[in-house]
């Protein structure tokens, strides 16, 4: 496959194109604005957006199936196709549980064969939205102390405690919960609506995303809903989640860059387009370079994970770190170069600015991933 760099073959390009077309017709910024305006709290997106019908259509385009092995009934495209999808989702600031669900699909792929794995694949293919619930209240991305405890009175587990920073908590149907079990950490699949499980929505800056806290009060989980592998499985599959977020930031940042370039060509001051000044051009060029490096690292890392390459983990850390830096730089400059209008709700810039801010911090900010790169390059 050396003639398709990063394994990005024609199937990947077709898959991306179908996602792009879908998003262009379903996810215009006007739609986003209208949806945002529906929530009485102006700083929240309703969980009902996109509609059930929209999610079904996305499913028909294979968004989730693409990550699921052929043997389990999926399409199993190279990871390049999925980061390309995430890039499009970012470019359209699309509010959906697609990225969370993909993260779970990749985790399921790495899990050992068994009832829990098979059930997860089946439900994901049937359109269930899923997400990871693996964080404590400190937002410790090492995922060391777990605050959901379990006891096993007979057969199954009984969960008590809380999971924090759960993405798409309000719309996911399945939660993969990190549980401190009697014999080490476990990953349990818990359906929404389980007795004793309540979801509390968080107020977050990103209007296009949704997050919450899960409270478990003696929630019963049958043994066959536990994915074997525990923390090792979680650690192995997190790079996929980082890459989806990194790709999303690449897409959102690209939107910000292009939009700001267009603005710089039409906004005039002192009888000249502001884009004529190098003080304006240079930061835009710097943003372009930062985005391009991030994009290259994302595709390189995606391919390395497909191939099981020895530097896959290093590349995934690099991709998340670089994408976060590129996102921060591009977002700040986009607001500033838009001048006063950039500070207003009226300008669309803020949707992407806030989405990037959320992605920057989620599952480890640039500093966290940079420190991991240092450990790998220099030694801990």
């Amino acid at each position, binding site marked *: 496959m050396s*003639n398709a760099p990063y394994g990005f073959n024609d199937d990947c390009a077709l898959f991306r194109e179908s996602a792009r077309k879908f998003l262009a017709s379903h996810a215009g910024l006007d739609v986003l604005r209208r949806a945002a305006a529906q929530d009485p709290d102006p700083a929240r997106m309703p969980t009902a957006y996109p509609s059930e019908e929209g999610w079904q259509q996305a499913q028909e385009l294979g968004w989730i199936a693409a990550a699921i092995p052929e043997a389990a009934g999926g399409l199993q495209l190279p990871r390049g196709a999925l980061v390309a999808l995430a890039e499009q989702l970012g470019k359209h600031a699309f509010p959906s549980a697609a990225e969370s669900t993909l993260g779970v699909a990749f985790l399921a792929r790495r899990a050992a064969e068994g009832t829990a794995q098979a059930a997860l694949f089946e439900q994901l293919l049937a359109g269930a939205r899923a997400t990871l619930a693996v964080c404590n209240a400190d937002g410790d991305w090492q995922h060391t102390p777990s605050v959901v405890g379990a006891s096993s009175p007979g057969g199954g587990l009984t969960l008590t405690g809380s999971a924090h920073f759960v993405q798409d908590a309000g719309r996911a149907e399945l939660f993969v919960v990190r549980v401190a079990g009697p014999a080490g950490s476990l990953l349990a699949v818990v359906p929404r609506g389980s007795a004793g499980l309540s979801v509390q929505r968080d107020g977050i800056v990103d209007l296009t995303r949704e997050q919450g806290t899960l409270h478990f009060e003696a929630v019963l989980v049958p043994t066959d809903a536990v994915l074997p592998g525990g923390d090792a499985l979680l650690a192995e599959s997190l790079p996929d989640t980082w890459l989806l977020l990194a790709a999303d930031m690449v897409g959102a940042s690209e939107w910000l860059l292009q939009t700001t370039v267009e603005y710089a060509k039409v906004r005039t001051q002192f009888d000249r387009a502001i884009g004529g000044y190098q003080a304006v051009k240079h930061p835009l060029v710097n943003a*372009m370079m930062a985005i391009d*490096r991030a994009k290259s*690292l994302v595709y*390189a890392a995606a391919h390395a994970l497909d191939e099981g390459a020895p530097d896959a983990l290093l590349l995934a850390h690099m991709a998340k770190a670089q994408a976060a830096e590129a996102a921060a730089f591009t977002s700040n400059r986009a607001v500033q170069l838009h001048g006063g209008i950039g500070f207003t709700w009226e300008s669309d810039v803020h949707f992407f600015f806030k989405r990037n801010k959320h992605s920057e911090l989620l599952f480890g900010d640039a500093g966290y991933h940079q*420190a991991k790169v240092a450990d790998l390059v220099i030694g801990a």
Partner: protein
Amino acid sequence: MTSHPDQEAAQREFREYCRAWLTEHRPPPAPVRLPQHPIETMTRAQLDYLQAWQRRCYDAGLVGADYPKEYGGRGNKGFQRIANEEMNRARTPFLINMVGLGMAAPTIFHHAQEELKRELLPPLLSGEQIWCQGFSEPGSGSDLASVQASLRPDPASPGDYLLNGHKVWTSLAHFAQWMILLVRTSSDHKHKGLSYFVVPVENHPGVTVRPLIKLTGETGFNEVLFEDTPVKDAWRLGALGEGWNVAMTTLLHERGAGPLVTPQGGVGSEGLAHNVQGLVSLARTLRRNGKPATEDPHVRARIAALAIRERGIVENGKRARAAALQDHPMRLPLQVKLAGGERVLGLPKS
């Protein structure tokens, strides 16, 4: 890039050849302290050493590999990049004729008359004749098209010209035999009034080269004054008034975006990973605040940032070969020079 299996086999063979040749002919430690970059070359001793090295590489077929045989090349398209990668890998000295290889050669190749190409390209590729670039002027920096150095008819030689003007920031002019020159031939139109010539600058009448001292204390670039300097019409590239278009060819290659790849020593992206490893090794041997520098969080963060940046640049090069993964065809190639420049200046914040 889809390449023919025969071509791939030939390229593999060439890579092995380069590797073997470089292992056998790696130069001994230089008798002089070598500069970091071609445009830092200051002394005659540095020049002699670097010129001799370029000559040996040229004789071995590692320079000019992609140029046609009749112009002193080897006529093997797609080979120069391989030679560059191997030279970088072997960490050999850079090729001194940077302006010649990077800017002058492709411009001459695309725009000069046949006879001029045959005359100028072989000694350029071998490094025997050093080139410089006369674009910048004291009054026209960023606004290149405002060039004022001008030609007027030479009364002594009909059809030819006399040049007057002042060029500045001219890298390597103190060693150069030839200059690529952007000059005004009409004041009626800003862009259409420009023409492009090659002119001899060493021992040529009316040419004065004066070194400029850099903030490092080194010289390496110069100002060049022309007073009634004779310029032959045969040295013209492109039609009179078409100099701007020819200059665009030069600039495209200066930014590393042209199809004729040329080795520029440390400027290529191929050797980047070695730099980070080198820095890590250095940090292991140094102490900071009584501890190994590798334990200093600031040092660790800076090295990690550099590692991420340099790997990103390397991956840009790979992604540039996947049309489907680009947003604009020239966007990645045009960044090569910027990235190279930033490396010379230090790590930027973003």
